[in-house]
């Protein structure tokens, strides 16, 4: 059976300025491959600078890879850095949800823009969709008239989630999205995410430092170190029996 998301040999390097004219190539990601089934959660952990956030950006389409492919449901959506621009099945939630929302637009306008650019829905059905999505993430319909500065941190995370979900994606990438929340709100959000996963068969790619969270919600685990996958497998197996030194170090702290 074809997995939902298949990442094959993804590599990315940045050109750094080393001297006046010389440039040094810096490999951020080297040969990354993994698969994700529908309704599963894949966690990516690693030290700071190991390329986690770059990987998240590549998956969401905010940046393009140098080589490698991303396949979704068997169709290629990115091949050697050329992305299918119409594909909105992988959506990303940013680390700082307030910074990722336009301060000059209300939530309703922002969600409406999303729908307008990507679907052929008419006005009443867009309004209905916005209402349904806000309810799905536990916000009220009235919240669509609010500006981002009027929300608290936890609510903003829900707004960001609503923005990701309104286009009915198959995969949601959470780039440290839960780290900035306090424990109770984080627990709430995690429960919301798990409920959505049960209801709609959503897949998550979770990028975090938070090991207990990883243990709690992820099915598979990728350990990144200096742009390379050092360990990849079932979360439970890796937690019980970490093979590489890097993983042991990460898990012990």
């Amino acid at each position, binding site marked *: 059976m074809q997995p939902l998301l298949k990442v094959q040999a993804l590599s990315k390097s940045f050109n750094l300025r080393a001297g006046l004219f010389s440039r040094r190539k810096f490999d951020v990601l080297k040969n990354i491959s993994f698969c994700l089934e529908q309704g599963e959660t894949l966690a990516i952990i690693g030290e700071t600078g190991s390329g986690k956030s770059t990987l998240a950006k590549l998956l*969401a*389409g*905010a940046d393009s890879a140098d080589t490698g492919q991303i396949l979704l449901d068997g169709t290629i959506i990115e091949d050697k850095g050329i992305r299918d*621009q119409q594909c*909105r099945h992988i*959506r*990303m939630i*940013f680390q*700082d949800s307030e*910074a*990722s*929302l*336009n*301060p*000059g*637009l*209300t939530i309703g306008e922002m969600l409406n*823009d*999303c729908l307008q*650019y*990507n679907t052929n829905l008419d006005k009443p059905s867009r309004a209905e969709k916005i209402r349904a999505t806000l*309810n799905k993430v536990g916000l*009220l*319909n*009235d919240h669509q*008239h*609010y*500006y981002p*500065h*009027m929300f608290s941190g936890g609510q903003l995370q829900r707004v960001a989630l609503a*923005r990701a979900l309104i286009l009915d994606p198959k995969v949601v990438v959470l780039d440290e999205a839960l780290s900035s929340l306090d424990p109770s709100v984080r627990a709430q959000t995690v429960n919301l995410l798990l409920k959505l996963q049960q209801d709609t068969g959503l897949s998550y790619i979770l990028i975090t430092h938070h090991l207990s969270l990883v243990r709690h919600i992820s099915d598979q685990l990728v350990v990144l170190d200096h742009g390379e996958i050092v360990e990849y497998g079932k979360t439970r197996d890796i937690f019980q029996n970490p093979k590489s030194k890097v993983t042991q170090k990460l898990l012990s702290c």
Partner: protein
Amino acid sequence: MAKFNLFSEESNKSPLARFWRKFKSNHPALVGLWIFIAFAILAAAAPLIAPYGVNQQHSDALLIPPSWHEMGDVRFILGTDDLGRDVLSRLMNGATYTFGLSVIAALITTIIGVLVGTFAGISRGLRSSFLNHLLDITLSIPSLLLAIIIIAILGPGLMNTVWAIILALLPQFIHSVRNLIVTELSKDYITAFKLDGASNWHILSRGIFPNIYEHIVVIFTMALSTAILDISALGFLKLGAQPPTTEWGAILAENLGLIYLAPWTVGLPGVLLFLAVLSTNLVGDGLRQVLKARKAD
């Protein structure tokens, strides 16, 4: 789901409404805004509300001091000059030239500056750095000097002055707008907006402009106060408006010889110039403070 209507519509303050509420609490800026509006009305309607014509001479009333002086005449509230022209009417009409033309010059600068600045902001590589470094060179010359150089090429005259001022103000304007756009473009919400499928035009019109137009207004007020000073300075140097045009700087220069005999003919245009620049700067400063306060919360 929602049983109660807990949130009333009115409490949803848009960023613009919040901006105005904060601005209102800054009283000097508010007074500046009133003076500014008064000047704007004067600039638009001066010929209609001025008591006498600009060049109407009263041969029976030469060099009459302002009406509160014991030698004054109530017909001429601010007195007359050596040709028997009513100072009040001339000064009111001067607002059209000094203030009105400055506003027009600043507006044209804003339109061109925003267009070019946007282009410079979104372009990358060679084009961007060409625009930047070319403008950096002109930035090193003070705007008044630049305007004088342009006047030297175009020849003196009021309209030439306006063009010179527009050209002199543009580099700074383009630079500021470009910097605003570049900072804004690197923010997360633009990336998120791109991932929503927004085109370049959407990113500019719905993503960036709603968040920088206040900054553009602030730059506009700075450009305006420079324009007022430049236009009157050029008028004073006899490079801009020529007498008998009632531009305040030109009035100042024309009456400079009368400073001991009739100080009101020199002092009053000076006071008006001062007020025009002060009100513009107060408004600009108030706007800047609100922007700063908004960044903090």
